[in-house]
C-alpha cells in the first residue's frame, strides 16, 4: 500500500501474508462452519505471534511496533488482511488495546492488555447503535454510581466478531456526557445476539446491556471528558478499516482485470471494449488514490503530527465512497457469473459496503471534518 515500506515492515507483511494464505484462504473465509470458535482462537493466537495486536500498545505495557509508527504498521497489516477478507476482530482488538493503554486504570491494563497482545482473547468496540445518527455514545445510557462506576442499559448493534471470552469497549451516554467502559462479554446482564448480516466473512452481533454494573477500574477515561480519547479511537478505527478496504479493493480490482482479459465476447476480450476498459482505469485510479490517502493518514495519525484525526476522517470518507463504487463496477464487469454464490465477487461487495458504513460512513466523516475545522 505504501510506496516506501521498510525491510522490517516488508518481512512482517510477507510472513503475515503467508500465514493468511495458508490458514484462512477464501475457501475458509466463505465457510462459517470452518470459521468456528476453535479455528478463530487458534487463528488469533498465531496472528498475535506475528505481532498483530501489539502495534498500538507502548513497549512499557508489553506492546511494541516495528517502524516507530504503530498506526502505519497496523495499517499495512490491515491492508493485507483486507485483500483476503480475513476474519476476527483485528480493528476492534487494536482500538480497544490502544484505548486501554492510553486511558485505562492500572488494574484494567493488567487485566486486559496482556491477553489481548498475546491473542488469548479478542476485543470489540461496541460503538454503533441502530438509532443514534452515527453518534458513538448512542444506544446505551449509563448512570454514574457514587464510587465512580457505571450501570449500563441499552443496546449496541453491528458489533464485530464478538467471541464468548471477548472484551467489549462500550461507548455510552451519561448525564455528564459520553463515557466508556470495558466489559467482558460473559458478564451478567450482557446479552450477545448473533445477527444476520450483509458481510458473511465476519460475524455481527447485537449486544444488550440490562443493568450491567461496571467497576470504577473498568471505566476508560473520565465520563464527560473523553472527547479527545474518543477522537483518537475513531481515527484509529477509521484508518484501519479504510486500510482493510483498500486491500479488498486492490484484490477485487485485480480479479476483475484478469477476468476482463480472459472473457471473450464479440470475438475479443471484453477488456478491449472502452466501456469496460475505462471503468477499470477509473477504478485503478480510485485504488491509487485510496492507497495514497490511507498511507498518508496512517503516517499522520501515528506520527501525531497535528492532522491525524482530520486525515483519518478524510481517508474514511474517501474510501467509504470509492470502495462501494468499485465493488459495484467490478460486479458489473463480471456479468452473470458475478451474481452467483460460488463467485468471490459478492464477498468483496459485502465486505466493502459494510466497512464503508462501520465507524462512520462517508457523509458522517465529512461532517466531522467540518467540525474539526471549526466550521
Amino acid at each position, binding site marked *: 500500500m505504501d510506496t516506501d515500506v521498510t525491510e522490517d515492515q516488508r518481512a512482517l507483511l510477507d510472513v503475515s501474508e503467508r500465514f493468511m494464505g495458508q490458514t484462512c484462504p477464501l475457501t475458509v473465509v466463505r465457510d462459517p462452519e470452518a470459521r468456528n470458535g476453535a479455528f478463530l482462537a487458534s487463528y488469533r493466537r498465531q496472528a498475535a505471534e506475528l505481532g498483530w495486536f501489539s502495534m498500538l500498545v507502548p513497549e512499557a505495557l508489553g506492546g511494541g511496533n516495528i517502524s516507530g509508527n504503530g498506526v502505519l504498521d497496523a495499517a499495512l497489516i490491515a491492508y493485507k488482511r483486507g485483500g483476503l477478507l480475513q476474519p476476527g476482530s483485528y480493528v476492534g482488538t487494536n482500538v480497544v488495546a490502544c484505548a486501554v493503554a492510553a486511558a485505562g486504570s492500572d488494574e484494567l491494563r493488567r487485566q486486559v492488555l496482556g491477553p489481548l497482545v498475546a491473542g488469548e482473547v479478542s476485543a470489540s468496540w461496541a460503538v454503533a447503535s441502530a438509532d443514534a445518527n452515527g453518534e458513538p455514545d448512542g444506544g446505551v445510557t449509563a448512570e454514574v454510581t457514587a464510587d465512580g462506576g457505571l450501570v449500563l442499559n441499552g443496546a449496541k448493534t453491528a458489533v464485530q466478531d464478538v467471541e464468548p471470552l471477548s472484551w467489549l469497549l462500550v461507548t455510552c451516554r451519561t448525564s455528564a456526557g459520553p463515557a466508556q467502559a470495558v466489559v467482558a462479554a460473559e458478564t451478567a446482564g450482557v446479552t450477545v445476539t448473533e445477527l444476520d448480516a450483509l458481510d458473511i466473512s465476519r460475524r455481527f452481533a447485537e449486544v444488550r446491556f440490562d443493568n450491567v454494573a461496571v467497576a470504577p477500574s473498568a471505566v476508560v477515561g473520565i465520563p464527560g471528558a473523553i472527547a479527545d480519547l474518543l477522537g483518537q479511537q475513531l481515527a484509529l478505527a477509521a484508518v484501519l478499516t479504510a486500510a482493510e478496504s483498500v486491500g479488498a479493493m486492490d484484490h477485487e480490482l485485480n480479479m476483475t482485470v484478469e477476468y476482463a482479459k480472459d472473457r471473450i465476447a464479440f470475438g475479443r476480450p471484453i477488456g478491449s471494449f472502452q466501456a469496460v476498459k475505462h471503468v477499470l482505469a*477509473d477504478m485503478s485510479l480510485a485504488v491509487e488514490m485510496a492507497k495514497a490517502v490511507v498511507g498518508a493518514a496512517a503516517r499522520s495519525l501515528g506520527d501525531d503530527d497535528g492532522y491525524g484525526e482530520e486525515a483519518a476522517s478524510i481517508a474514511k470518507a474517501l474510501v467509504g465512497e470509492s470502495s462501494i463504487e468499485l465493488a459495484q463496477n467490478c460486479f458489473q464487469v463480471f456479468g452473470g457469473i458475478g451474481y452467483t454464490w460460488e463467485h468471490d465477487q459478492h464477498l468483496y461487495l459485502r465486505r466493502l459496503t459494510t466497512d464503508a458504513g462501520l465507524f462512520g460512513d462517508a457523509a458522517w466523516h465529512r461532517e466531522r471534518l467540518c467540525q474539526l475545522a471549526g466550521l
Partner: protein
Amino acid sequence: MSNGTDIETFRQEARAWIKANLEPRPKASATGRPDREASTPEDIARARVLQRKLFDSGWAGLSYPAEYGGRGLTALHERVWREEALDYYTPDFGVAGSVTFGAIGRSLVAHCTPEFCRQHIPAILSGDEVWCQFYSEPEAGSDLAGIRTRAVKDGERWIISGSKIWSSGAYLADWAMCLARTDWSVPKHRGLTWFAVPTNAKGVEVRQIRQINGNAEFCEEFLDEVEVTEDDVIGEVNKGWAVTQTMLVYERGAGEMGASMVEPRELAPDLVALARKVGRAEDPAARQAIAKAHINDYAQYHLGHRIADRLRAQATPDPAVAAYGKLASGVLAPIRARLGMEVGGPAALAWAAGDEDGGRPALNYLNGRVTSIAAGTNEMQRNGIGERVLGLPREPSFDTNKPFNEVLGAARNWNSKVG
C-alpha cells in the same frame, strides 16, 4: 553557495537567498497558484528580468544539467525551492512558463545533440527563450500521431507547411516545438519528426483564439513554407514518436501534479469563505460539498507524491503511470468547480457587475474542464492506464499498420465494417 546536494543545507541556502532577493507576495491561494497569470508581452518582459536574476545567481534550472546552465540537482531540490519560494514573487511566464521549463525543456535535454542543448537550454533557463507547443492541429488532437503538417527536406533545409492550433501562449513565445510528418509512406508513428521553429520565422502566422472565459491565451498558427535547418531537428528524423513519449511524461506532470504545493490542511478555504458569504455555513448540503472538495484536494496532493515515487522507481518513467496524476486532475478539477457552483447557489450564477470575487466560482466552472482536455483528454489517460498499466488488450486499430497516406482515404470510405 555550497555545491552540496544535502537537502537541508540546500533549503537553508534557498531560504536565505529568497528572503534577501525576492519580493514577498500576498499569501498564495488554496491551490498554491497565483490567481492571475502572465498574459501580456509586458508580463513576459518582467518575468525575463527576474528569471535572469535567478539564473545569474544559480537558482534557475535546478534539476537541469550543469553543463547547460542548470545545477544538476534533483526533483526534490526543485520541490524544496518551490516550497520555500511559495510566498514570494517568482518569474511568471503564465502558461508559457510551465510549457517551457517543463515538457519542452526536459524533452530537449533528453533528445537533442549537445550543440543544440548548448544553444537553447541556457537561453531557456535565463529567460531569453520562451517556448510553446505546436502539437495539436485542427484535424488531430488526441490522435497526435495523425498530424498532417508536413516537412520536406530540401538540401540542408527543411520546409514546413501546415497548421497548428490550441498552442498555449504561442503569441508570447520565441520558439515552438513543432511536430511534422516527414514520411507519408510509412505507418503514422514512424514518419514523424520534431523541429525547433522560431515563432517569428518567415511564413509563421500566429493568431490568438478567444476562449470561453473571455481570455485569449491559446492560438492558431499557419505555417507557410517555413524554413528551418538540419540543426533545428529535435531528436532523430522519423523517430519523433520516441520524443513524444518523453514529452508526454513531463506534460502529464511527472514532477508537478497541478495540485497544491503543500499538504492542504485548511478546509477548502475558498468554499468556506463562499459559504459564509452566502449564509450557508450551517447548511448540511453545503458542508458536505465543502468537505468533498477538501478531501479531493488532500487526495490529489498525496496521489501526486505517490505517483512521483512510482515514477522515480522506474528506469524510464512510464507515461502511463504519469497518466494517473493527469486523470486525477482531469476528473477532480471539474468536480471541484461544480462544488463551488453548488455552494454558491444563485450568487454564483449572477453577481454585481465587475465584482471579480463574486464571479470567481463561475470562472472556475468555465475553466474546470481544461485539465480534462488539454495535454491529453481523460479518455486518452484511461486508454493509457487500461492498456499499459492494467495490461488490457487494445482496441482493434484501423490505422497503426497502414502507410499514413492511405489512412485518410480509408477513414473517409469507412463502411463501419471491421476487418
